[in-house]
């Protein structure tokens, strides 16, 4: 089972791209071994969901401010718990969550993060044109990417 987590605040314009992308993928239905979650933010309780028996991989979907590292393009990167901060503060990252998951599971969970560049994180609903274009590109990239994750027997 692949868990897709699209997170972000739908009232902060482009920050809502993660959950929207997750629902687009859910509606696509390209894989029947996928669960979609759309929390407002990542929280420690998600570690229980990810450490559950049957989960073989997780994909995080989130918007980011004009991702310069990727040159403003949609980026798909592997992510792990090695870079996690041990502190618990306002920001709980995919790495933080994966560290929890590893402690609960005993082994690392394969994980990737898909970043949708945005440039308007002000108050309100709806996306900037920049984010809309990137959302479409991210959807296409994610469809291809998901088709290449092999079906696995849970370990």
């Amino acid at each position: 089972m692949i868990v897709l987590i699209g997170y972000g605040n739908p009232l902060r314009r482009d920050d809502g791209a993660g959950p929207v992308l997750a629902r687009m993928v859910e509606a696509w239905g390209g894989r029947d071994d996928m669960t979609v979650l759309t929390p407002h933010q990542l929280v420690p309780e998600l570690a229980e969901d990810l450490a559950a028996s049957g989960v073989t991989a997780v994909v995080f979907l989130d918007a980011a401010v004009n991702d310069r590292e990727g040159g403003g393009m949609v980026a798909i990167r592997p992510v792990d718990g090695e870079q996690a901060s041990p502190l618990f503060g306002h920001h709980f990252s995919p790495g933080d969550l994966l560290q929890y998951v590893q402690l609960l599971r005993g082994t690392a969970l394969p994980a990737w993060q898909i970043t949708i560049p945005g440039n308007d994180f002000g108050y309100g609903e709806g996306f900037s044109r920049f984010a809309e274009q990137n959302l479409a590109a991210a959807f296409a990239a994610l469809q291809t990417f998901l088709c290449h994750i092999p079906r696995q027997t849970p370990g």
Partner: protein
Amino acid sequence: MATMVRIEPVTRIEGHAKVSIYLDDAGEVSEARMHVVEFRAFEKFCVGRPFYEMPGITNRICGICPTSHALASVKAGDAIMGVAIPPVAVKLRRIFNWAQYIQSHALSFFHLSAPDLLLGFDHDPATRNVMGLIQHYPDLARKGVRLRGMGQEIIRILADKSIHQAWAVPGGVRQPLNGEKRDAIKAMLPEALETVECALALLKKSFAGFADEVEIYDFPSLFAGLVTPDGGLEHYDGLLRFVASDGTPVEAGIAGERYRDYIEEASEDWSYLKFPFFKPHGPYNRGECAGMYRVGPLARLNVCDFAGTPRTDEELAAFRRLGNGRTVTSSFHYHYARLIEILFSLEKIAQTLDEEDILDDWVRAEAGVNRLKGIGMVEAPRGTLIHDYSVDRNGIITDVNLIVSTGHNNLAMNRTITNIAKKYVHGDSVKEGMLNRVEHGIRAYDPCLSCSTHAVGRMPLEIRILSPDGRVVKEFLRE
């Protein structure tokens, strides 16, 4: 020459603070101060908004305790409308509030404080956190994470969202509870109770290792919190009670509308967090802690005469034996009080869900503006929370005063860290474990600094306006 030792930022509390410890010429601590450096200004920018928008706005003061702000706000709205909301709406709001106690106190204990309490202050700093807790106490840590999740899930079941909900409104709540949702909540309670019992047992075993801290955090003060009309533990409604250190009532029960007769707020130029004090014991004198009172779990257990649920009353009796048999004055025992309140919340949720009318669909009263002032007072997990709104005849906010839980504890937090610093800091050579003791002194209060800093005060301000490429376009300086 006097010198200063800074600990910045304080880890594992919500929000940001810095601590300054002032040394005298002999290298001994003269004073410690907690500076709150966040500035939010909710009291100002809410002016001009309709009162019924305030729950949605103040909900967003904080992501840890949005439920408390929502409840205080809707109660202020109830008062502006001049309505008594349907009885089952009161019960549903109470369940909503207790669920927040579960998640907030679980977060505080398992994620923020348990690493110190169960691993020890001198444990390797790299793993003196929840990750270390998972490694040493995997079962407890997992249960603690799940407990917080249960609190959030109960909120989500009631309100469709676990954070920043729009379910509680002036006049009541938007939708009733159905049988399926009630049963879903009930199904979570046995595991939650088992978790808190496990945590209570472990915490009580750890007390012997913290005898020094219990003593250092012990000082006299007033205590304040809501009680039921007959003096019981209360989180949603009731009367505000002040008691002295020995439990003697100072003010047995004040109606919320009169809070300004008893609570005044002072400011200091080195912190955005105000300093509320008990007005009859004024004037304000920070050095002498005039009018200092504590709120929150420790205070609520001190001000009440009983809890009213079986297991909680047993634990309340055990808790009181740690003090003089009536009150406990060491802030170290906030942690124990927090777990007792989780227990209380679970017992009360179970009781309330079994009441006959809990599925009734009459959950909202309708009315317009009938009063030009509304005060909503609740007990947030961290302490007494007051939303005080003035409106015009169209219901538009003309004035807002918010006194949030952490603010009430400001004098006490500063007193606590001064006591700790005096014991563990000598000169400018400070060990890591000692630094964490100062931070822990703040963490014992589980402060929520995002909530606390919302007012336009007299703080010197430097404002810079920056262009998108980082150039300073204009600069304002107010001394």
